[in-house]
């Protein structure tokens, strides 16, 4: 984060010294894109915040730990695909799952679909990529996650 602030400031100063007018155009363009995205993003974040409250971590742990084998892997993949859990919650959660005896493969599938597949953020993805691309990217990522999980599970 600090690095990003530093890098952005540096870029802005550099850009301003070379051409102030061009910098302003870039500024306006960037901010325009930001305010285009902000309303839909706020709604999604409100929904996710509420979901995180109504589905507490314990429930997720129990749910993921309840089944093993192929069904367990599929459940983990689906939960990971639907949920939008930030990494600082997801990794400790994964750690708890491992401690409860859930297999590495299930945890790997869960983590991979969590970071690659975004069901809740689909409205944003469609704005940028269109329905077709968003659908295929998520589907292919979901299948990839199943393969990754199986492989990690086999090699751990």
């Amino acid at each position, binding site marked *: 984060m600090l690095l990003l602030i530093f890098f952005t400031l540096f870029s802005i100063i550099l850009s301003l010294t070379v051409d102030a007018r061009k910098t302003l155009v870039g500024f306006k363009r960037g901010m325009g894109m930001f305010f285009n995205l902000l309303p839909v993003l706020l709604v999604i974040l409100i929904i996710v915040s509420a979901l995180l409250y109504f589905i507490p971590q314990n429930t997720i742990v129990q749910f993921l730990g309840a089944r093993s084998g192929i069904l367990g892997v599929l459940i983990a993949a689906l939960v990971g695909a639907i949920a939008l859990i930030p990494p600082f919650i997801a990794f400790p959660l994964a750690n708890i799952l491992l401690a409860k005896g859930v297999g590495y493969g299930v945890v790997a599938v869960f983590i991979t679909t969590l970071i690659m597949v975004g069901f809740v953020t689909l409205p944003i993805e469609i704005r940028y990529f269109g329905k077709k691309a968003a659908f*295929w990217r998520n589907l292919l990522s979901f299948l990839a996650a199943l393969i990754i999980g199986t492989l990690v599970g086999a090699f751990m």
Partner: protein
Amino acid sequence: MNYRKLAKDYLWAALFLLFSIGSAFLGFKPGIAIFRNFNVFIIEVLTFLPLMFLLVGLFDVWVPKESIEKHIGRQSGLVGSLWVILLAMLQAGPLYAAFPVAYILSKKGASVRNIFVYLGAFSCLKLPLLTFEIGFLGFKFTLLRSLFTLPLFIVIGVLMEKILGKDYRVREGK
């Protein structure tokens, strides 16, 4: 400024704000807890994303199309993919923070394959994520997951190019 559009755009956010303030006054616990969750996200959104978008805007006005086309465009091959993977690894943030970057790369002539390789690398291999993962799940787990992920999202990039065609372009996000 179009006030009607503004009111429509931020209606839900305004209602949520009222609900949160009300919850705080009345001591309504679920409301307070939901706002706490929201707070974590919104800090990220309001600090991180504006900077990202500023950089994207500056990138747009400064970086010539030819240089992007040459390095990560249609003819760039595997080296081009390595460039976008490197770029993605050095970044941070949630996946939706990568979408505006994907747009600007696409606008400047990056190949469809490299756009989706970039998204794959951004979601799975960014360094802040990996350090976090090593801390909680161990080095071996992280290494294995990264090793298996890398070839798969390159395959996804190739497939996406086949599905969408070489002329596909990412939109501005309006």
